[in-house]
């Protein structure tokens, strides 16, 4: 264990120099204005490749600071039914990492300032090849990766971290209400760009958020890091977002609500624009 921690410390030093600049700047700017980041989420390839790209573009135009682009996985262990269904539909239409990188790249060309974060499960990356993944992600202009089933405890964590580091992409860490002090200490030591703080015990899209709980969680993390903390899970409407923004967080994630909205308006010809207007209602309350 001592050795593991030593490695972690070494890594940390390395990281201080190589942090993804774009995301660092986003939070720095917001901080100066005393504002909070809005982080949006959508499923790559849902409802289809082209539309999912359009949605991302519109989101970035609507005032979102960071966008999480989900790489679909059928057995997603930590996602609710709304996202899972979108995942499966996208998989059935033939989504894969190459297509996802294409979407990311076009989004990057559309908006050079947006934080682009890929999100998903390890297996897609593992099968694709870790090195190749890092290179392609970098080429596509991706800033960060959230990998749900990649705790520091598994072999691939270091492999991925190293590969990403080479190309300047950060590996975003999650902290949940069950994560104890010790583990928070270790995770924060390892973390880059920002911390993803899960408000609720539970999977996405099923419960509602409470500002007190969120703050408790954030305060536990702040003891160990100065990294920005974004608060996610359970934000159902602009009201929730406004509430959470009152907490000590640095940003708010709106995830399954957006996917749900897409789902509900899936036949609408102006779907991307509608999603854009919808997200603006969140942007508004955070101003």
């Amino acid at each position, binding site marked *: 264990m001592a050795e593991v921690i030593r490695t972690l410390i070494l890594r940390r030093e390395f990281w201080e120099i190589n942090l993804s600049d774009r995301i660092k700047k986003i939070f720095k700017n917001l901080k100066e204005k005393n504002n909070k980041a809005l982080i949006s989420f959508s499923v790559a390839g849902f409802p289809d490749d082209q539309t999912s790209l359009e949605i991302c573009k519109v989101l970035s135009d609507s005032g979102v600071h960071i966008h999480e682009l989900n790489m*679909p*996985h059928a*057995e997603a262990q*930590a996602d609710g039914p709304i996202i899972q*269904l979108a995942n499966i539909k996208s998989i059935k239409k033939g989504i894969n990492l190459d297509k996802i990188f294409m979407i990311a790249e076009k989004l990057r060309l559309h908006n050079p300032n947006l934080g682009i974060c890929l999100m998903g499960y390890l297996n897609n990356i593992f099968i694709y090849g870790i090195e190749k993944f890092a290179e392609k992600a970098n080429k596509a202009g991706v800033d960060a990766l959230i990998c749900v089933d990649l705790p520091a405890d*598994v*072999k691939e964590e270091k492999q991925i971290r190293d590969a990403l580091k080479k190309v300047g992409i950060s590996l975003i860490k*999650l902290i*949940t209400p069950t994560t104890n002090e010790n583990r928070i200490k270790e995770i924060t030591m390892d973390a880059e760009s920002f911390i993803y703080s899960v408000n609720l015990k*539970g999977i996405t899209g099923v419960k509602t958020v409470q500002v007190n709980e969120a703050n408790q969680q954030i305060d536990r993390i702040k003891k160990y890091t100065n990294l920005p903390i974004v608060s996610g899970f359970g934000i159902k409407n602009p009201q929730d977002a406004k509430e959470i923004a009152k907490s000590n967080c640095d940003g708010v994630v709106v995830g399954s609500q957006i996917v749900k909205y897409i789902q509900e308006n899936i036949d609408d010809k102006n779907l991307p624009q509608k999603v854009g207007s919808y997200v603006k209602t969140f942007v508004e309350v955070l101003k």
Partner: protein
Amino acid sequence: MTKNSLKNGPDEFGYYGEFGSRYAPEILMPNLIELEEAFNDAINDKKFLDEFNYYLKEWIGRPNPLYYAEQLTKKVGGAKIYFKSDHLNHLGAHKGNNALFQILLAKRMGKKKVLCETGAGAHLIATAAACAFKDLPCIGYMGRDDIFLQSTNVLKAKLFGAKVIECVDGTGEKGVLKDACTSVLKAWSSDPDAFYCCGSAIGPHPFPRIVQYAQSVIGKEIKEQILEKEGRLPDAICACIGGGSNLIGAIHEFLDDKEVKLYGVEPEHSAALTNGTVGIMQGFKSFMLQSETGDSTLATQSLASGINFYSAGPEHAYLKKIKRVNYTHVSDKEAFDAFQLVCKTEGILIAFEPAFAVGYGIKLAKEMGKDKLLVLNICGRGDKDIDTAERILGDKLE
């Protein structure tokens, strides 16, 4: 712990070679670590082990016989065939060994609620029963299709006081064991104070290790019994493999006895170890029947619901890699013929799952020669399967 023994379990990070470990969302990590510590503590606590052994004996009814299947041996005309009789266990399958162990562990940890997944329902009824007698609420996750096919097991679980939750895949169109696995992991993520009682040697570390530990009683008994009956170790042991708990249970004690050949038999159309590729899903790394991109599992099919699974436990992936165990498969038809043959020759109604072991075992016995000893692991009884048997046999059943 002997150095270089295959019986040592995973390394300190939860790996068997490159396989296993815990690919779990952060929300579950503290639980997994707590569980690992609790497990390591428990198996060094004589009182706890005494309690486990007490209930294995008194409640499960162990040791069960190592039965010389004389009529089958004669019929096949090869190696001397022994049945390890887990079909005689309380609740009718080997699953009880593991459920009992984990529920005693849950109780020891002070847990107040138990979740479990199930395929054919064997693990569900075992967990529900153990929860009943240890007074813990139990919630079982089961695929919608399995609920339909194994309705009597659902009923049993309810009589033991369990709640059963229907699971479907992402499309909501069907639901089998893998969907129950995904659902229970989600449920546990939402309710991390609960104890998750995993039904096979799969899932994130330490589950494969815990399940192997609990099931190893099978192989320990085999060893003791065959030495008593034959004065020597068997030449081969053969078991079916779904997640891999009955197989690992039967063979773990023999892993270092290189002269004992070991066989794991999968269904032809869910043969993850024979036809799968390395992947990481549902918390562990192993061979899997998965899409090229790794974003989903492939549909599998088997006469036996309990072994209809897209993967197998990580220790098996390792044992395959180092060639210690021979993994192979037989067809539904071979298994069904074996099922009928055992009924007719031995008067024993085995489950469809071990019928796969028998189906291969028959071929193996023929090759082995009469002076050899072959142990087949009969991991469950077939009461649950007779409706399907009737459907298959139709008019031929008179």
